[in-house]
């Protein structure tokens, strides 16, 4: 129908970048980054996911409702994660008996 036709060239470019990032994330895991290793891995994964969504899934060309809903979904997941962790992380804060 009225869907936006994305040129093939863009698909191939995105694919190449995704492969490069996959290689990069494997390489990064071999470095000793300490606690930053997880952050680097997740940032790369987020970039890759965003690229898939924007071009492969045409979010870049869709109505604004869809990115809004998507961001909402991810924010909700972050809130689930964040609030659950707010419990776990603060459990140790209370002066425990005998401390």
């Amino acid at each position, binding site marked *: 129908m009225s869907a936006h036709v994305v040129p093939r060239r863009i698909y191939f470019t995105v694919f190449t970048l995704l492969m490069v990032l996959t290689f990069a994330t494997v390489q990064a895991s071999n470095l000793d980054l300490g606690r930053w290793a997880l952050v680097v891995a997740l940032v790369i994964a987020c970039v890759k996911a965003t690229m898939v969504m924007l071009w492969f899934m045409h979010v870049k060309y869709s109505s604004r409702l869809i990115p809004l809903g998507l961001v909402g979904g991810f924010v909700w997941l972050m809130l689930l994660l964040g609030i659950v962790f707010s419990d776990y992380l603060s459990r*140790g804060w*209370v*002066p*425990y*008996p*005998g*401390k």
Partner: protein
Amino acid sequence: MWSDLPLWPDQASTSAAQVDALYLFLIGLTIFLTALICGLVTFFAVRYRRRGPGDPVPEAIEGNTRLEILWTVIPFCIVMGLFVWSAALYVHLSRPPDGAMQVNVVGKRWMWKLQHLNGRREINELHVPAGSAVELTLTSEDVIHSFYVPAFRVKADVVPGRYTSMWFRATRPGTYHLFCAEYCGTKHSGMGGSVIVMEPAAFQAWLGGDTGESLVEAGTRLFGELGCATCHVDAAADSPSRGPKLAGLWGSEVTLHGGGTVTADEAYVRESILDPTAKITEGYPGVMPTFRGLMNEEQMLQLIAYVKSRGVAESAPPARKEAAQ
């Protein structure tokens, strides 16, 4: 005749009166607002009732922003006040005072096993003296239970694999209900008993009446029987030992292998016995075997009592449990 229809629970602890005060305030608020809403609804319904099919269509009133703001802001202020009040109470209830008398509680389907510091055991009954603070350390051998004494207005879930705590200061001698409040299976409603508050002198007499092995003594015995002493030796400061020293350990900040620190508390000691490699003290090899399955929760509490008895870290706040012993 009212003895058949109680409307108010016994007030038998210092916090009971505080909880009841908040409760009474809320009842007042509820009555006031319910009466206001229901009164207005009734008044409008009668005053503006439709008298017949020929009644004109009333003028449309779309709303009033000032009113909306008013009835958003006023409830907001009320609930924030309630938050502060109840939060203060909550923090008070969750922080045992220094020097509280210690009792260990283990929940097991469907009974409560309690042990005083001097070793005196009880099942489904808890004797406490009036007037002094009592702190319970609770854990479970199977599912989640909840230790609930309505007359004291206190409750704490009892979670397997973890220690929870609660405290109260009983005020009036008497016998009060002890319930399990978290559903735990078939005989959940039978998992109860009583809390018996006694005059301090009577309590001392009761406590001393049947002393077996005290908690620390039992812990010391276990420490030897399980062979812990072969590695955890308190030799001279510089001589090597395979396990961390226990003297002065309790309450100290332990530096861990791989960075980070942990406070030596019940949870840490328990974890170190069950999962020794989970948190390895800096400078020691992670060679300790697990003791999972080799002891029950009561013995674990005895071992913890022993570790506590080996001395509190100098940096820690003044110990309070030694006083009770």
